[in-house]
Structures are given as C-alpha cells and as structure tokens.
C-alpha cells in the first residue's frame, strides 16, 4: 500500500503537458501580428488594470495567456532581468532572444521538476527591429520550448484555429489598421464557427512602433484612438475591397 505506483516517464510528462494545456485553453486568446511599422498585440481582455500585454524594455514587449499570477510573476522577472542587464551593460545589450532563452529555461525547469506544478501559461516575447525583417517574435509554450515565429502568432484558448485563420490572411507590409482589423476578426471567430463582436472596451491593444521617436517603442492604444482605428478597419468589412482601402488610409492618418 505504501509502494508508489509505477508511472512511466512518458506518461508523467504527458499528464503534466495535458494539465498545462487545459489550463491555457480555458482563457481567451492573444494574437500578435507584424505590420509595416512594428508589431501589434491584440488581446481580448475586459480589464483595464490586469494586463495581458506589457512592456519589458525599449524594443521588447510581452504577451501571455493562462494563469494570471504565474505569467505576472514571469513578466516581472523579465522586467527585472532586462533592467539589470541594461544597467550592467548597455540598453542595446538587452535582446528578445536573451529574454526568451531565460523564459524557456525557467518554464522548462519548472515543467520537468517533479516538485513543482507546471505553469499553465504560454508567452510571446517580441522585439521590434530597424525594419520589418529585423523583427523577432518568439512563442514560449508551457514546457520550455521556443518557437521562432514570423508574421502572425496566436496563443490561448482557440489558438490553433486562430493561427490558421491568420496564416491564410496575414501578409507583409500591412498597415496598423489592416493588421488590427485582421486580428480582431480572428479573435471574434468562435470554436463552433459562429461569430461574436468585440468592441474597443473588450480589447487590450498595444504596439511596438519602430517609428516612435522615444527610446521606448511600446505604446498602448486606448479609448478614442483605438475606436477610431477599429472603426476605420471594421466598418467596410462587408463592402468591396477598394472602399476598405480608402477607409483604412483615412484612419491611419488620424
């Protein structure tokens, strides 16, 4: 009776992975897309205070889904890592690659340690470069692996379906309004094929904008600015494409 059951390592890992995946799948999704001037993060998040998308450093931002206390802990760890590295060396020496590495090691160690429960989180770390070809996006699943992503990526509850939707439609050189429109469309698609509508109040949107004159490229899009971009992007969705183009160019000016 006191002898523990034998569980094969494969089974143990599969169980842990299953546990983490289920936790992640409960939450709403976050999508990250490249556009001409940077990277846009869009999350379905009614809270104005509990963020899923945050700034890490000058050119680096973070998005996460899953258990809030766990990814918040990792986010603060990342901010501390980046600030310490920048303080010790130079601001240019803080890179998304380095940060993604540290996150992967941390998640991997926790995942395979029998003493800890696996983190139910999936992270995205993105860095905006001098041009679109220099942008970096890393996806970090719960088990400590790193996936180098290009163009678009989705994590969270409905990630597979959203990813394939984005993969088919995302292209290089999209404007912010176009990318935002696509991101919102992808998030509004339900598991069972239905569509919901998402208003500006239900969305958390932030960009890493390489054209920003400040050293810190991260910016949240809030309130009227977001509504304007969304209106410009979503209103002509059911009309013909030429009309959509003109409306989007209007909205990017504003």
């Amino acid at each position, binding site marked *: 009776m006191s002898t523990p059951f034998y569980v094969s390592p494969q089974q143990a890992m599969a169980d842990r992975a299953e546990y983490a995946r289920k936790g992640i799948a409960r939450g709403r999704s976050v999508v990250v897309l490249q556009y001409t001037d940077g990277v846009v993060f869009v999350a379905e998040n009614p809270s104005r*205070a509990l*963020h899923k998308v*945050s*700034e*890490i450093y000058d050119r680096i931002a973070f998005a996460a889904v899953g258990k809030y206390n766990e990814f918040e*802990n*990792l986010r*603060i*760890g990342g*901010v*501390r*890592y980046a*600030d*310490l*590295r*920048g*303080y*010790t060396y130079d601001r240019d020496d803080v890179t998304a690659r*380095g940060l993604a*590495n*540290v*996150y992967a*090691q*941390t998640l*991997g*160690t*926790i995942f395979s340690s029998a003493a800890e429960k696996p983190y139910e989180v999936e992270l995205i770390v993105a860095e905006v470069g001098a041009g679109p070809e220099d942008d970096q996006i890393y996806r970090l699943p719960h088990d400590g692996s790193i996936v180098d992503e290009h163009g678009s990526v989705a994590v969270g509850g409905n990630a597979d379906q959203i990813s394939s939707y984005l993969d088919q439609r995302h292209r290089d050189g999209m404007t912010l309004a176009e990318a935002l429109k696509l991101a919102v469309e992808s998030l509004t698609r339900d598991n069972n094929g239905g569509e919901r509508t998402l208003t500006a109040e239900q969305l958390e949107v932030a960009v890493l904008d390489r054209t920003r004159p400040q050293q*810190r490229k991260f910016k949240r899009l809030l309130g009227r600015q977001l509504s304007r971009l969304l209106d410009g992007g979503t209103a002509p969705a059911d009309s013909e494409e030429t009309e959509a183009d003109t409306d989007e160019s209007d909205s990017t000016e504003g």
Partner: protein
Amino acid sequence: MEANTRSTGRLPAAFLTPGSSSFMDFLGAHSPQLLPGNRPLPPAGAIEAPHGTTIVAASFPGGVVLAGDRRATMGNVIAQRDIEKVFPADEYSAVGIAGTAGLAVEMVKLFQLELEHFEKVEGVQLSLEGKANRLSTMIRGNLGMAMQGLAVVPLFAGWDVDRQKGRIFSYDVTGGRSEEHGFAATGSGSVFARGSLKKLFRENLTESQTTTLVVQALYDAADDDSATGGPDLARRIYPIVTVITDEGFRKLTEAQCSEIVRAIHDRRLEEPDGPRAALL
C-alpha cells in the same frame, strides 16, 4: 550575477519574488555589490575627480525649466568643457546634477531606471512627490562618499500631473529635500545664479521668457564663479536648457539655445552686467 550563468539557466529566485516594484530593492536583494551605496569607501584623503557646477531651475505658469552650464572642473583645471549635467528622469521630470560628475551620472542612471522600472511593473507612473523622495534616498546612500569630498547635489524638476503645475525640488548632501517656489539653483555658482534669478524672476513669465531667464542666471554665475562655464560662442557650446510641460520633457535644440545665448550676449556687449532691476 547574470541571470543565465546559474546552473539551470532559469531565473533565480530573486527575479520571481513578488512584492517590490523598486529596482533598487531588487538590486539590493540580488546583486548588492551593484548598488552605489554598498561599495567600500575610498581611504580618507581628498580624491581629485571632475566636479560639475551650476544648475538652475525656474517655473512658469505652464511648466518648469531646468538648465545647466557645460563645465566640469578638477581643482583649478577645466576637466571638460562640454559635459551634460541635465537629464530627463522620465517623461515628466528631469534632474540636473552638481557635484562629483562620475558618481552623479551613475546616480542619474539608476534614478532613471528606478522610475522606469516602477512604471513598467506597476503600469502607472510614480507621483512627482514619490519620485522626489526616491532621489532623496539615493543621495542619502551617497553620504559616506560625500563625507570624503565626493558629494552629489541634484536639482529635480517636473510636471505634477495631478496638480497640473511645474514643481522644483532641491536637496542637500544628506538627502534633505525641500520644495522650491519659483526658482532654485545648486552648485558652486548657485549663489550668483540665485541672486540673478531673484532679481529677474516674475510669476507670469512665458516659456520663452523663462528659458531666457535661466540662461541669464547661468551667464551671471559664470561671470563671478570660475567653476561655471559661460556660453562658448567660438566653440558653439551652449548651456543645456530643458522644458517640462504637460506635453512632457523637451530639450531645447542647439539652434534654439544659440538664439537665446546670442540675444543675451548682444545685449551684454552694451550692458556687461545684464538687465537692471528697478530700485524700488
């Protein structure tokens, strides 16, 4: 010390400990040797190190102006003639430093990071009072050095987002902090600069008048204090002038500074002592 030199490569415990939004607290827990205050003091006896000199600030109805001269001295030698001693602390505040240049620059770097770190972790900026208090703590941490002759005495100015006005804080070497109303000066030329500010300052100046006012004060400081550098027209080295309003921090361009300096210089060719205040 570096996160990824640990055996497993995962973030060490200090990185994931919840609770503190302060970078200095984190540094104290994780790598205390990096905190300026934790270093062993140099042996007693004067150390020759470059010193920065005069910083002036003045507020106007829409904001506050912080400016500094460009000279660093080491004893009677000019160590550097184009040093920059006024820095943005964050979007809505700036800090100007007088005293030991090397320590001061490090203090500013840590102060900037402290504000940025708090903002990123908490998602909101510190209040202006909070920022001023953090700087106070940092100066107090340098007291040991100050007693060896390596003091750092900054001037802090910022736009108070809550009260919608520009505010100025001055410090002493022990970290004592006092809010100044209207104008303030620190550094070796501050006595002369303050005299000048006192006679020229008025409550209702515009932004451009206030920038002229602070350059006048620096001009007067350089006139009587050998450690303060006047505008160097030949080398095009002008004071650093920064303005903080509700739109945030802005540093005047070289062309804008040059314009102010030249206007003052031209007037002073006729009146070397500068503008006269009324006798009564």
